[in-house]
């Protein structure tokens, strides 16, 4: 008969040991906002629910000089409350404001949101735009993975069975201009139809640096490499912006579902990109 156990280790070493030992079906739980519906829907049938809630090592936000480190267990509301995030990663702050609803934000963690690897994961888009890197650990040791190569498919990541996300790191470059926009069918508790994050640096009227990320328009949250490529070196005229929209609409790979059609999502991706760029530049367009 199917059995399931629960464990809530207090140290990272203990957690990693359990994670290493448990050959099959260990499921890591943080805020548990996803695990319960999945269990009920029988999407998962783990033999062990491993709660990492009690691991102090995975908590806290540190901004030292040019790097911001966010512990994987940081809840979305903790992000919202953090002055460091507001200052050094306004884009992440903006995303947090639109994340699910106020109650879920008290439980959902940034690590969980990433590990869950939903194509619409709202925290992934700004972090991609921020060029974030994940600190991943296991009993075997530590490694770091750029977020842009972390997701491999809906609900799939490069995480090995015995690995945990320990923290998310990104450069705290407050000179760059950033913006995040989420488009959903409802003002709250809405799954993104499309979300866009951009980070830009303009030198002598030209785009010197561009990071573009999209959510809910591909099997995974995605970097808009082609859009970035297109933008770099350009002067952001209305025409360029128009073209950028087209590039984005072509680059995204959305599907049609009950919420919207593929073509509508492509269209919205372009629209949102344009708006995000304007927002980032504070409406200051040439």
């Amino acid at each position, binding site marked *: 008969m199917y059995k399931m156990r629960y464990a809530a280790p207090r140290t990272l070493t203990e957690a990693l040991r359990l994670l290493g030992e448990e050959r099959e079906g260990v499921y890591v739980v943080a805020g*548990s*906002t996803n695990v319960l*519906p999945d269990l009920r829907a029988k999407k998962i049938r783990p033999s062990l629910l491993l709660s990492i809630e009690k691991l102090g090592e995975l908590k806290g936000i540190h901004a030292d000089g040019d790097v911001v480190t966010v512990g994987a267990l940081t809840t979305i509301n903790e992000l919202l409350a953090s002055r460091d995030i507001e200052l050094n990663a306004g884009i992440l702050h903006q995303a947090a404001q639109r994340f*699910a609803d106020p109650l*879920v934000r008290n439980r959902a963690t940034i690590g969980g949101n990433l590990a869950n690897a939903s194509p619409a994961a709202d925290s992934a888009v700004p972090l991609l735009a921020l060029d974030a890197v994940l600190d991943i650990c296991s009993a075997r040791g530590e490694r770091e993975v750029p977020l842009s190569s972390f997701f491999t498919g809906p609900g799939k990541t490069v995480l090995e069975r015995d690995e945990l996300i320990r923290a998310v790191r990104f450069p705290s470059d407050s000179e760059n201009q950033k913006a995040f926009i989420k488009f959903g069918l409802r003002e*709250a508790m809405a799954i993104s139809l499309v979300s866009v994050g951009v980070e830009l640096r303009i030198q002598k009227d030209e785009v010197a640096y561009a990071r573009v990320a999209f959510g809910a328009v591909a099997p995974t949250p995605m970097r808009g490499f082609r859009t970035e490529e297109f933008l770099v070196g350009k002067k952001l005229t209305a025409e360029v912006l128009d073209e950028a929209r087209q590039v984005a609409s072509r680059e995204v790979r959305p599907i049609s579902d009950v919420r919207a059609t593929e073509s509508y999502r492509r269209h919205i991706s372009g629209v949102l990109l344009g708006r995000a760029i304007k927002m980032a530049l504070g409406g200051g367009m040439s």
Partner: protein
Amino acid sequence: MTEGYAIELTVNGRQVSAEVRADETLLEFLRTQLRIIDAKSGCGKGDCGTCTVLLDGLPVKSCIVLAASADGKDVKTLSGMQNEPLVKALQESFVTHGAVQCGFCTPGMILTAASYLNEHKNPSRDDIRRALSGNLCRCTGYKKIVDATQAVARRNE
């Protein structure tokens, strides 16, 4: 089948030790083991907010919180907060503003409003709407709920 997991927590000020299943939700635990009924089950997956409780002081949706993860924590439901001035004030305000119709969303709504007003002194109507946006109401159209909450916020100023 899942094996029992022993937890100790405080529920509405009472020390409780119990055995829960690994997949038991906090809501299920409160309703079936402790027979606390003011937290309701409206959707079972965090979409409606009728199951709102305070976990270590923060409003959460107890239908998507593992009972086991409440181990060592402090859980409060509306029935455990009847004497808190702010809660009392909100209840009174909800009643006099006609913000209560079928009443099924009301306990969760009041808990969320209370914990929000604890943090925020003079919120705008939009602030309040956003703060309550995790708690669905199908009867009132929300206006009287916002009125009632705002009235208490004003009193707090």
